[in-house]
């Protein structure tokens, strides 16, 4: 701990440092090929595209921290977008924005609560509940849309989502707010400490009188609410609402959470890492465009995304390699793991 190399190793062991290095290296390479990548407009676009993922990842991260998982957010987003369109589009029910949007937020929270209830009181594993919802909600969305697309959202909402306030769209401001709020929950509240404690050892948490049910219900409801929030601020940016919205979004969010260093078995993880992962994965598409990889190269997009994820995961295990210990389930919790979670959020 005293020598310099020790410190260097400790710094490198942080997932955040590795991700940051990766982002810097990639940015450096791209901007030597095409300096246009660093243009303010482009950086802003990357920020805007990261926003919905960042918002929802805050919720999913808390779910994963408690030792559960949520892979239904993409379909939930589609359902909520359809609902929002039906409620407030001028071609549909034409309700006021001030009625429609709270209704969407409420609906998202309620579905989150339902998920949480099935997990905690129904005792169904969360991966199964959300896998079921992933297919069921997508089907429900298609039924609800009846084969038509919905446009004609209120102009005010559209312009807030597209151009926004102070040069940044509403989604970016929302993402910042959500990030700070989630950061404060994690670091400065009893709720945050309890969520991590529950994930580290459900048994110990129970023995010390924490309510597993309530904590998990909160995490799922928060995720549902944030998904609704992301839908409200981001979907009006798109040309129209169609039933394919949020396709693959659930896997993107989960990928960001695990690449960001949150332990899949719960109890460990930091918000900064997750946010860096969000930025890194959002960068893949523009990076390929700016590298001008050409028509053949474009077809490697998915492979490169997969490679990025593998790389992030492998480097992490290589650097902080544990000699033994199981890769799943009740991983023996190291005493330090709880403390690690107390890092600063931003």
């Amino acid at each position, binding site marked *: 701990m005293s020598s310099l190399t020790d410190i260097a190793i400790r710094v490198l062991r942080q997932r955040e440092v590795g991700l940051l290095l990766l982002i810097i290296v990639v940015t450096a390479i791209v901007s030597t090929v095409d300096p246009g990548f660093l243009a303010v407009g482009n950086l802003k676009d990357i920020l805007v595209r990261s926003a919905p993922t960042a918002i929802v990842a805050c919720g999913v991260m808390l779910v994963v921290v408690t030792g559960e*998982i949520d892979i239904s957010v993409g379909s939930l987003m589609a359902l909520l977008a359809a609902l929002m369109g039906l409620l407030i589009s001028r071609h549909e029910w034409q309700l006021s924005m001030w009625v429609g949007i709270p209704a969407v937020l409420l609906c998202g929270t309620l579905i989150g609560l339902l998920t949480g209830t*099935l997990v905690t009181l*129904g*005792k*169904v*594993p969360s*991966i*199964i*509940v959300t*896998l*079921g*919802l*992933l*297919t*069921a*909600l*997508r*089907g*429900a969305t*298609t*039924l609800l849309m009846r084969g038509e697309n919905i446009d004609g959202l209120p102009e005010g909402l559209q312009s807030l989502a597209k151009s926004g306030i102070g040069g940044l769209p509403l989604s970016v401001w929302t993402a910042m707010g959500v990030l700070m709020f989630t950061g404060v929950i994690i670091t400065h509240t009893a709720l945050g400490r309890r969520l991590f404690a529950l994930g580290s050892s459900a048994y110990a948490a129970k023995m010390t009188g924490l309510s597993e049910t309530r904590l998990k219900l909160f995490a799922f409801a928060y995720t549902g609410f944030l998904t609704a929030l992301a839908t409200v601020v981001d979907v009006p940016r798109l040309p129209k609402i169609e039933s394919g919205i949020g396709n693959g979004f659930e*896997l993107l969010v*989960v*990928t960001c959470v*695990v690449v960001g260093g949150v332990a*899949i*078995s719960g109890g460990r993880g930091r918000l900064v890492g997750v946010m860096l992962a969000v930025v890194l994965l959002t960068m893949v598409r523009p990076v390929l465009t700016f590298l001008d990889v050409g028509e*053949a190269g474009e*077809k*490697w*997009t*998915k*492979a*490169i*995304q*997969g*490679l990025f*994820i*593998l790389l992030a*995961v*492998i480097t992490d*295990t*290589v650097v902080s*390699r*544990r000699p*033994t*210990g*199981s*890769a*799943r*389930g009740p991983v*023996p919790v190291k005493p330090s793991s709880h403390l690690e979670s107390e890092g600063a959020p931003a």
Partner: protein
Amino acid sequence: MNISDGKRRFPWWHEAVLGVLLIALLITAGIVNPGFLNLRGQLLLSRHLWEFALLALPMTLIILTGGIDLSVGSAMGMCAVAFGMCYSSTGSVALSCLVCLLVGVAGGGVNGWLISRMNVHPLIVTLATYAAFRGLGEGLSQGESYSQFGEDFSEVARGMWGGVPIPAYLFGLLALGCALFLSRTPGGRYVYAIGHNEQAVRFSGVNVGRVKLLLYASSGLMAGLTTIIYVSRFDTAKADAGTGFELDVITAVVVGGTSIYGGRGNIGGTVLGLLLIHETRQFVSRQWQVDELKSIVVGLLLIGSLLLYRGMQVRNRE
């Protein structure tokens, strides 16, 4: 008449419930639409089932150890591309099949190696290879589709022996093999034991890593085998083969009563789960002819069946 007594005397509780549900469904369907129970029709439509069914076998074993393999569908895309590329350059179906299987084993081996040697959680590894395998297929083939493998080859999946589709025999054989492996061999006992308490198995001197490596590699091998049937059935080899299969396969295994935490479940349950989902889908599509309804019903069936099991389960864990 207490259920706990029943459970002790009668270990096939999950299977019994699944069987009752299946029979109830078939009776309902038969009453509503007598044509539904036509045996020939059922056998013809069973073609939709075999690919999922084959993949469900190694998936059951993997989930029994507490792992998961999200990459099987993508592995099929990669295998299909290998098959197509090999066929277009050599023109030999046999060689293409071999290459297809080898690529499958290699893909599964990569998963297994990362999981057992690098100690990365299976969910994370296979989430990464889920994107990587499909991407590799797309990149190598440039999205190209390969076709026209000849009449004989399409008989592999479309042909019938004695009125029963050929892949059914293959599945029957492999399912029996898996069931015997689980119940009669030390390897099978290790699978359950790893799912119950991996640490204990490790300390008892079993090479847990090797077991896992073999399981994930066999899952890859099965993806290769399934791809051969898939390619034969549609006479098309393309990087989009098997899209979305992973979720359907996991659904079938879990509906079949295998615990996602590992340690509990068996092949018989998986077979019943497969049949229940297959028949439910068929019934829904026949009854309403609305595609999106199928996904809603299967999603609810998944959650509902797990609630049912939870209700029945005597809480001896935790």
